[in-house]
């Protein structure tokens, strides 16, 4: 049996490194586009100030990018180091988008980022602009590939189990790439990245406006961020990926858990705004509900039902029982009984093989599972409801707060009254952490909500790990925590320093600290 401690430590390490990586990714995704917009304005109007804007925000982009690259590297290797059985079991499918990410996107992104910083004097305006756009596009393409990989873990389409190689193998690449779960996730994630960058630029520009310095620079940045942010936050909310939660059993379970929908009700279901879900009793206490809303968001229709947790459990129990049969047949095949009858019977049940593997947590043999163990494995198929319920609501609350900030900022920009509303500038400044909170919460919802599976319905998380020792895991975990803390402190120090300094950091002689002769 696999020691639970190693499973927990492996999960903790992956969660820390992935959440940490995603502190830097969304800013890269969005800021590259904002830079491209600013530079396009520069090339079209020829006004120097837009070039300064591109270069200044580019400087902050660079500080952030370095850590994004550093922490991304870890993730590329961590599937192998810590999730070896996962890598073997699904590498045939999951490895492909990762390899393509390198070939198609990350190469282009990293090559162009060099020219962005070093090519200003060596390239014509239009060529440099082209590099910036390629940088932005490649960054987003990179996100697409990663989310195709991630989307497959949520809704594994286009692949089949092969008992000869004991792994999942691709049957259709089209299905893997155009997986609805992946596509919805991609749009939602990149739009969240745009929001993050817009909030970042908006908040820092508000700081200059509050200090009444470099106003021309600040107000232009503020306006671009407000417009870009408004469009992005609307997209994030409208394209919120709950719509993707109808594809695949685990996605359905996740939706029910997020909403603490214990029962299947007449469509369209009501949305629980707030309440206290109790997973043991399967009720939500003190719930405040709005009729219809959940059904409309979740299924985009008024007559499709959202299946409740109790009904899902019934379905899952049957799947666990089928999984036991599938596992027994697989053992027979592995023992050399490859006659057609057993194989065809296995093919009939193999869809639920993963549910059988859930029992490995309780019994090595699986086929000797007791009723008690079957019920326990069934119960395991429902993720932590209160946790998902709350993280999801924190994310949504952040999203709607940003909607308000961007909408009002954008409105004030169009009527040219930004400076008269200093309170909004303060709010914008102190709201800079909001998109990050939303992003991190979003990932917790998506990945915690996928539990107990590493790959939905195919491979349980606790079987996916590498055969390592607790001591080794503490070593790597301690290494990550100390390195990442150190790097974070350094990064924040530089980010604050240059954000406070503002465009004077460019040493053009045109901005605040250079004019008054001081330095910061």
């Amino acid at each position, binding site marked *: 049996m696999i020691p639970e401690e190693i499973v927990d430590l492996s999960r903790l390490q992956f969660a820390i490194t992935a959440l940490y990586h995603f502190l830097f990714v969304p800013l890269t995704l969005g800021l590259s586009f904002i830079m491209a917009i600013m530079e396009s304005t520069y090339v079209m109007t020829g006004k120097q100030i837009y070039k300064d804007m591109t270069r200044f925000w580019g400087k902050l982009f660079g500080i952030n990018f370095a850590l994004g690259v550093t922490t991304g590297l870890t993730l590329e290797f961590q599937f*192998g180091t810590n999730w070896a059985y996962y890598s*073997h079991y699904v*590498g045939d499918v999951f490895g492909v988008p990762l390899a393509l990410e390198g070939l198609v996107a990350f190469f282009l992104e990293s090559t162009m980022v060099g020219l962005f910083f070093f090519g200003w004097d*060596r390239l014509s305006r239009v060529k440099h602009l082209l590099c910036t756009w390629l940088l932005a596009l490649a960054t987003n393409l990179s996100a697409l590939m990663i989310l195709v990989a991630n989307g497959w873990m949520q809704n594994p389409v286009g692949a089949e189990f092969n008992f000869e190689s004991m792994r999942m*193998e691709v049957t259709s690449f089209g299905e893997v790439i155009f997986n609805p779960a992946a596509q919805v996730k991609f749009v939602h994630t990149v739009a969240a990245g745009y929001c993050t960058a817009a909030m970042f630029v908006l908040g820092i520009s508000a700081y200059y406006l509050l200090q009444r310095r470099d106003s021309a620079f600040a107000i232009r940045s503020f306006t671009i961020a407000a417009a870009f942010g408004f469009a992005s936050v609307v997209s994030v909310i409208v394209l919120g990926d709950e719509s993707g939660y109808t594809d695949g059993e685990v996605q359905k379970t996740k939706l029910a858990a997020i909403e603490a929908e214990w029962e299947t009700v007449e469509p369209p279901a009501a949305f629980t705004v707030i309440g206290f879900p109790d997973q043991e009793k399967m009720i939500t206490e003190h719930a405040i509900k709005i009729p219809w809303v959940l059904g409309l968001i979740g299924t985009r229709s008024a007559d499709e039902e959202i299946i409740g947790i109790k009904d899902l459990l019934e379905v899952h129990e049957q799947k666990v029982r089928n999984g036991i049969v599938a596992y027994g047949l697989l053992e027979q095949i592995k023992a050399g009984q490859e006659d057609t009858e057993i194989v065809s019977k296995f093919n009939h049940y193999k869809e639920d093989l993963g549910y059988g593997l859930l029992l490995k947590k309780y019994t090595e043999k699986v086929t000797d599972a007791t009723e008690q163990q079957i019920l326990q494995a069934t119960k395991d198929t429902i993720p932590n409801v209160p946790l998902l319920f709350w993280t999801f609501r924190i994310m949504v609350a952040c999203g709607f707060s940003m909607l308000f900030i961007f909408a009002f900022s954008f409105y004030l920009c169009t009527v040219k009254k930004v400076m008269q509303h200093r309170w909004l500038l303060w709010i914008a400044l102190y709201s800079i952490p909001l998109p990050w909170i939303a992003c991190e919460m979003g990932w917790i919802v998506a990945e915690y909500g996928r539990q107990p599976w590493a790959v939905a319905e195919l491979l349980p998380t606790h079987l996916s790990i590498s055969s390592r020792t607790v001591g080794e895991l503490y070593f790597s975990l301690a290494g990550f925590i100390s390195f990442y803390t150190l*790097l974070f402190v350094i990064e924040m120090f*530089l980010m604050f320093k240059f954000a406070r300094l503002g465009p004077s950091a460019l040493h053009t002689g045109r901005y605040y600290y250079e004019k008054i002769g001081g330095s910061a």
Partner: protein
Amino acid sequence: MTLDYETLKVIWWLFIGILFIGFAIMDGFDLGIGIVLPFIGKTDDERRVLLNVVGPTWEGSQVWFVTAAGALFAAWPLVYATLFSGIYIALFLVLFTFFLRPVGFDYRSKLPDPRWRNSWDWGIFVAAAFPALLFGVAFGNLLQGIPFHFDNDLRSFYTGSFWALLNPFALLTGFISLSMLTMHGSMYLQLKTEGVIAERCKRTIFWSGSLFLVLFILAGIWVAYGLEGYRIVSIGDLAATPNPLKKVVETEPGAWLDNYSTFPWFYRVPVMVLIMTLLTLLFSRTHRLIFGFITSSITISGVILTAGISMYPFLLPSSSHPNNSLTIWDSSSSYMTLKVLFWATLVFLPIIIMYTSWVYRVMRGKVTVKTIRDNQHTAY
């Protein structure tokens, strides 16, 4: 040419080889320059010259590493899983030191404080020297095999320790890698700089190249007479669905030379390494710097090929359970995955090489102390 499964398995051996050679050449000189940074760069300005030689291109070079790892995952999932989980501690040490590189490059010159800059310079040195050494150590261990086996579900178990990886032969290959990349990095540096820096490079190239030559010959003798090689005794259909538990493997000192005995033509590869190294030393001396860089790159390719040919078709031999060794025949991805990625690589790799060359053309010319002084605030 028909793209049957067996052919694709061989093609992917070539492709992964190309990606690793690409990494070794392109990121190799970034690593080499990192290694010599605190020594060839005596003053802050000089160190900035060194950093800015690779400044515009190192990010792209590093992607060879990422893509090679990604391709390894996709084409040989079992190798990716078994190797990386097996050398767990060693790989994390490489990654942890690797952290210091992007951050070092980007942050070092953002503050003027000499202590800050000096710390990062040594950070970049560690981030270069340590991985350069450990990549070689990894190669040495591949040649010897590492102790692992599979259970019936193809779950892998590594039974060695971290310290066992640092055995004499692996340390020898580690220093081969270190000296080779020092030579390669200094060669690129000599090409891209002038004056006193270029002069110092010349000396570094001479001693690192000579050291490399001696170590490489030594390793060759060791492989021929001392090291246990692996040999497949029997295996089923080469185009069959991969499963590494269905073959018989034996070990014997010198077995790694089987491919060379069967096809003596291949002996030209290690011989070419020797000639190209000598030429690199010569070209550095006579200031034919572009040629020197080319011969140094061929040296690197030759070293990787020499090891690759020895081991073919083995990818990851198991020293504890030789029959469980991973070969191209029984640890590849499915036919469809290999085929789709084959076409993707065929299309995108030339495009990558095209725009990378364009960037090198845009950034051509020497980096001097004057360049740094003129770009105080934008250069690395």
